[in-house]
């Protein structure tokens, strides 16, 4: 009984993670510019990693394997935002401007490039 619940949960988590990965790949291909693609890449770094490795951790019968899986999640969660920030900052400093207009209906989007917080 408990095995059935664990297996079902693993199926659900791994399928959700796989779907998220496919969406990520699609996003890397079809989003319009670099900055929006970074968001798509961050999706694979965070939730897809979490879902897949938690799904695998439910199937492991060795405590050390579970700990290693959780440790990979922690490492990825610590390093991926730093890499994303370095990439975004590097391309911003290099003079690559994000594409901010030309999306959707013209009246809904009339922002400046830099908008101060209210």
């Amino acid at each position, binding site marked *: 009984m408990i095995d059935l619940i664990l297996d079902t949960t693993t199926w659900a988590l791994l399928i959700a993670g796989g779907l998220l990965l496919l969406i990520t790949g699609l996003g890397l291909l079809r989003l319009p510019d670099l900055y929006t693609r970074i968001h798509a890449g961050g999706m694979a770094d965070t939730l897809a990693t979490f879902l897949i490795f938690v799904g695998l951790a439910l199937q492991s019968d060795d405590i050390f394997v579970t700990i290693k899986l959780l440790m990979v999640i922690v490492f990825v969660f610590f390093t991926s935002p730093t890499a994303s920030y370095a990439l975004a900052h590097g391309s911003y400093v290099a003079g690559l401007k994000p594409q*901010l207009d030309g999306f959707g209906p013209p009246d809904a989007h009339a922002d400046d490039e*830099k908008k101060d917080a209210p």
Partner: protein
Amino acid sequence: MLRAVSLFLVLMAVWLLLSGHYTPLLIGFGIASCLLSALIAWRMAVVDHEGHPVHLGPKIIVYWGWLLVEIFKANLDVAKCVIFPAKYLRPVMFTTKVSQKSDLGKVIYANSITLTPGTVTVDLDNDTVMVHALTEASADGIKNGEMDRRVTAVMGET
């Protein structure tokens, strides 16, 4: 010095968890290498409140739990954006204030912004942070300042 001891204990725990073989020889190697690492880090003076932030304590765990829920919601938003770009995709770029005093707090805040998909920190200045957001809604999620408040609370600053 106390921090170096605590760093040694943390390193030793990681060694024991990752190795999985408990013979006297291997544990001896573990103690020797962890001691050496802690000693080198202490001599390099990198074991301070930034390099080994144990003082954050259990509050950061609670914050990670909250952050995980935020990441979950933000992922669904980004997935919607990828599948229906014409309907949802409205990138904005804006600057907002950082209220943390210490560098560690600023880094935790900026990395939390980047870790939630839909918002990426592009530039971190002294007290402002420039954020690129995928939709207006995700930009509002940063602008309302809840994450800022929570990081400040974790850092123990008011």
